[in-house]
């Protein structure tokens, strides 16, 4: 039963996540609200893992989510479900449509979708900020985790220095891990 649910949810993600890469993020965010497959904090870890391992991020995220939920069979199910819509649609396009990307209607659809995808990813990132930068105190109220916020700001500044910009994300992630241990974040 869990496999069928995984299959349906990731098939839907593969079908509606346009633009690739992080486009899967808003859908995964939605999953944290509807199922207890993984939490928002785990989703953040998942992004870190995906950024530091090879392969398309969307596929990595599906694999990680599937594995987290139902082990290796879950990972296989989620990944297959994610790529199935691509296979079906691309084969259809390759077979029947030439000049698909020049089509007026396709271009009109994407004119509307591109800013919407950017907005959806932005809203998912807001959600990540909330779980990563705020902490629950013992009395159950949310307070800002100043150390983590400071580290995030420092990293953001570093990321915008032209010479450091081209460095692989894994280097920044290692920097974060080291700072986290040093300052007991």
């Amino acid at each position, binding site marked *: 039963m869990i496999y069928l649910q995984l299959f349906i949810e990731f098939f839907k993600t*593969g*079908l*509606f996540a*346009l633009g*690739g*890469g992080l486009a899967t993020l*808003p*859908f995964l965010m939605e999953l944290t609200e509807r199922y207890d497959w993984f939490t928002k904090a785990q989703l*953040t*870890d998942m992004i*870190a893992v995906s*950024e530091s*391992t*090879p*392969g*398309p*991020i*969307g*596929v990595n995220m599906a*694999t*990680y989510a599937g*594995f987290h939920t139902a082990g290796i069979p879950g*990972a*296989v199910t989620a990944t297959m479900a994610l*790529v199935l819509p*691509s296979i079906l*649609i*691309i*084969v259809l*396009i390759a077979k029947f449509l030439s000049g*698909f*990307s020049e089509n*007026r209607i396709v271009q*009109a*659809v*994407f*004119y*509307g979708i591109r*800013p*919407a*995808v950017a*907005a*959806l990813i*932005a*809203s998912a*990132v807001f959600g*990540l*900020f909330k779980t*990563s*930068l705020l902490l629950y105190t013992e009395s159950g109220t949310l307070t800002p985790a100043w150390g*983590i916020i400071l580290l*995030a700001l420092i990293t*953001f500044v570093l*990321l915008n220095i032209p010479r450091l910009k081209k460095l692989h994300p894994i280097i*920044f*992630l290692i920097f*974060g891990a080291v*700072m*986290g241990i040093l*300052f007991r974040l």
Partner: protein
Amino acid sequence: MKELLELFCTFAQIGALTFGGGLAMLPMLKHELVDKKEWVTEEELLDYYAIGQCTPGIIAVNTATFVGYKRKGIWGGVLATLGMVFPSLVIISLVASVLSNFMENTYVGHALAGIRAVVCALMLGTVLTLAKKSLVDWICYLIFFGVLILALFSPIPVVLLVLLAAAAGIGIKIFGRKKDKPV
């Protein structure tokens, strides 16, 4: 049969060696598919990429399906795609199983807190770049902020928001321009 195996292996190699996905994969795909294997021309590859960006799913996966289909029909498409995702399946499953065993450790906890801060910074950078690239006129800004507010404060599902934006695009581009078109 031999060529199907070759498709699987070639795309498995690409999947194992490229970080980041999306546009980051283009140079690698060009090197392997255009220069080394001569399976497709550079123009074809760019066309596949363009189509990949306007069809659902992951761009790298879409490109793999396209190239595989062109070489060996449907099974070619399937095997190229499976090759592309195979390394992710193995690597991520390994990482995930190791990670969940270490989650309880205090040092790992501190390291993860630091890593999450970095992920926030990386994501913020990505969102800003993405917004810069996709917000080309004031209508785009309108759609962007409209969808952002709905996504943050309303319970409307993501799928519906994507469909709404597509409808808005058609409405504006196809029907909205009719009046001022020269006859």
